[in-house]
């Protein structure tokens, strides 16, 4: 991977397409893991590679909070994920057990728990660890951030 990918042409530079699965373990305001991962995704796709899944685990689930409302003049990590998910059809999977522990529930889950809530931002989905495992099986490379 070239250091300065922005100066390289957008045509695939490699004949081999590498499939990546990524994991994010820290919250958006705890580290720059999310931003680095997003930059990586942009570079990987520009290089002709494929990102199968981004799995949010541990405090990484806070990336998927629907009602995160940073001030207008600040960077919004959630928006960046949503743009990437839409542009590149990337699967943004949030671990159900890590999310429930921390109070992030999609409406279905909230209903099952007898609660009223709907915290999952658009573009993300709730998933289990089995789906992370399947994604690591399919991927050529697995990278953990945070």
């Amino acid at each position, binding site marked *: 991977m070239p250091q300065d990918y922005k100066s390289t042409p957008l045509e695939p530079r490699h004949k081999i397409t590498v499939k990546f699965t990524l*994991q994010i*373990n820290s919250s958006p305001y705890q580290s720059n893991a999310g931003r680095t991962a997003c930059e990586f995704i942009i570079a990987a796709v520009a290089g002709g590679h494929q990102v199968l899944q981004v799995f949010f*685990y*541990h405090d990484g689930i806070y990336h998927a909070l629907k009602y995160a409302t940073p001030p207008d003049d600040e960077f919004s990590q959630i928006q960046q994920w949503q743009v990437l998910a839409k542009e590149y059809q990337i699967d943004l999977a949030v671990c159900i*057990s*890590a999310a429930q*522990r921390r109070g992030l529930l999609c409406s279905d889950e909230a209903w099952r728990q007898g609660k009223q809530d709907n915290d999952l931002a658009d573009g993300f989905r709730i998933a289990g*660890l*089995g789906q*992370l*495992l399947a994604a*690591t*099986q399919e991927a050529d490379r*697995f990278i*953990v951030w945070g």
Partner: protein
Amino acid sequence: MKKYLFVLRKPAHSGAFAQEMLDIILTTAAFDQHVSLLLLDDGVFQLKSGQQPEHCGYKDTAAIFNALELYDVTEIYVEAESLAERGMLAGNLFLPVQVLNRREISGFMQGFEVVFSG
């Protein structure tokens, strides 16, 4: 089937981190994958004998480690320097482990297809 290595570097009861790593380890083992663990730095405390986590309101992760054998997870490696720097011996741990030296670690990791860092 792939070879998975879980690198545990945090102490036993640092929030839910160690417990959530064990969840992935158990899931991976339940999917019949080849699972090994490597304990580095403060991660060696996860296997320290005589933990009493109930005093600080945490789950007893030692019980989960002890159950790993049922899932055929028996390859547990510990870095010698991490133990020594913390005044510990392999005998202070509640599971049998294989001890590696720091200079062997990077070569050891290359034998795995998926490395989870935690």
